């Protein structure tokens, strides 16, 4: 695993890319750029104690000394991060957790709901670079600029669904998944999913029913992000006990955890 470090980083760019969603690019001095898709960073908002805790953000893209994240405003912390301007400074701890490990012998199907796209974007970019075949099922409430960005980047690989039918099929990602998979010309596929709780649950159930391996990336409230506070535990499936989302995850096999 890569060494975890706390980078005193600088905002290089902050662009509003959609209603309430910002793409922030940062300069992380000495960061070697090595991280797995699915890994995340804990971001300290400022030097004062309010907000108190860091906030977890998936790595959207990274390379040597550079990191991109996607921030959706949902509360005070995300709002303050989203308001950072060029040259503002932020402590960024990471890379954290265990990311996606791709099964090379099977077709990758990435299922993303809304902001769940962040870690899967990273995964998809890697697959693209490795010239691997993959598909993305991308569900959102309504056609967003983020979706447009995906269209531009991943083209035909993306299958769009929206709650209101404003782009692609009028459906949810999990509802659309079965027939989408049936129409794929591959014998073996593996699902990589990230998105709202309900969606993940349905995707896992679907996968189990069809014997298709499913990997999900979970979100939980976090304090430390490194496995010491036990704030982010999720129940093991079948076995007794808990796993930490921050250290044992955030990516889990669908049959490993109870969600």
């Amino acid at each position: 695993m890569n060494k975890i470090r706390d980078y005193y980083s600088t905002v290089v760019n902050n662009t509003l890319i959609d209603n309430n969603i910002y793409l922030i690019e940062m300069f992380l001095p000495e960061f070697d750029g090595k991280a797995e898709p699915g890994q995340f960073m804990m971001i300290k908002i400022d030097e004062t104690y309010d907000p108190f805790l860091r906030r977890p953000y998936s790595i959207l893209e990274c390379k040597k000394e550079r990191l991109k994240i996607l921030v959706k405003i949902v509360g005070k912390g995300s709002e303050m991060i989203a308001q950072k301007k060029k040259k503002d400074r932020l402590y960024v701890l990471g890379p954290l957790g265990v990311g996606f490990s791709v099964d090379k012998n099977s077709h990758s199907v990435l299922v993303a709901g809304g902001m769940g796209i962040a870690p899967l974007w990273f995964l998809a970019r890697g697959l693209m670079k490795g010239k691997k075949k993959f598909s993305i099922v991308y569900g959102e409430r309504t056609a967003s600029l983020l979706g447009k960005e995906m269209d531009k980047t991943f083209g035909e690989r993306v299958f769009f669904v929206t709650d209101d039918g404003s782009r692609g099929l009028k459906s949810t990602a999990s509802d659309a998944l079965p027939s989408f998979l049936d129409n794929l010309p591959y014998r073996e596929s593996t699902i990589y999913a990230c998105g709202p709780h309900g969606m993940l649950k349905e995707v896992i159930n679907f996968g189990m029913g069809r014997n298709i391996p499913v990997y999900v990336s979970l979100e939980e409230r976090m304090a430390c992000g490194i496995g010491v506070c036990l704030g982010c535990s999720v129940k093991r499936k079948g076995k007794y006990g808990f796993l930490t989302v921050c250290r044992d995850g955030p990516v889990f096999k669908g049959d490993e955890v109870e969600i």
Partner: protein
Amino acid sequence: MKIDLSTKIGKLKFKNPVLTASGTFGYGLLINEIFDISRLGGIITKSITIRSRPGNPAPRIVEAACGMLNSIGLENKGIENFLDEVLPKIKSFNTNVIASIAGETVDEYGRLAEKLDRNVSAIEVNISCPNVKKGGMSFGQDLSSTKKVVKKVRRKTSLPVIVKLTPNITRIEDIAKASEESGADAVSIVNTYEGFSIDIYRRNSKLGGFSGGLSGPAIKPLALFAVWKVAKNIDVPVIGCGGIMNFSDAIEFFMAGASLIEVGSATFSDPNASLRILKGVKHFLEEENIKSIKEIVGIVDEN
């Protein structure tokens, strides 16, 4: 100038007075990947119980103003797992390893102490956890239960015994005194303050466990005052804890009467916090020409 940071609890020597608080540092293994934790005066483990405990339902963490509420519920794999799996890995740390224990009955505290005897550097007796239904804080809120637990632990081990007190009480100095009289070698002050927070749209507590414990800078003035009240009243060392975020907070605790300090939630906002604080304390003493940390312990008092 050579600064003397060393201190003692009973016969146990600490190379410096900066410890990490139970439940905020795991067993030290993960943070040891970030810095060499042997530089600290000691680490205190997550509280260990007789049986494995699953802990409380999620969410277990909610942010509060200048602090956080937690309702972990003492998740841990139990004493046997600790002795078999964890201890071998952490024994080699070149610092004091203090095991925190939590029982549901007086007897359980005794059994935990017995099993740990000779295996760790000291025992911290957690009679102050607000997040469990049985035992926990209810012991620490009652004079006679406190005495029973401490006496029992005292009989079962020759290790230094530290009693961790709850601040959710009218006179913490009385519980501290009772602990001392029952054989404690030190008291740590404080565990978290009982509180909670409501999601007004869901009309429910924001915590899965309903109520939780408040920690972080928000509680610092209260914890500091508790330390001051206790330190004047007992002779054994006080370990100060509660909202310590930087060296200056730590110095406040020393001046209020703490001989050692524990860094808790600060580690969440900065995993290097304990080391940073240790360095800051040393630097302060140098700048102020103070040769030994002992010179400032309890130096502040009413006029």
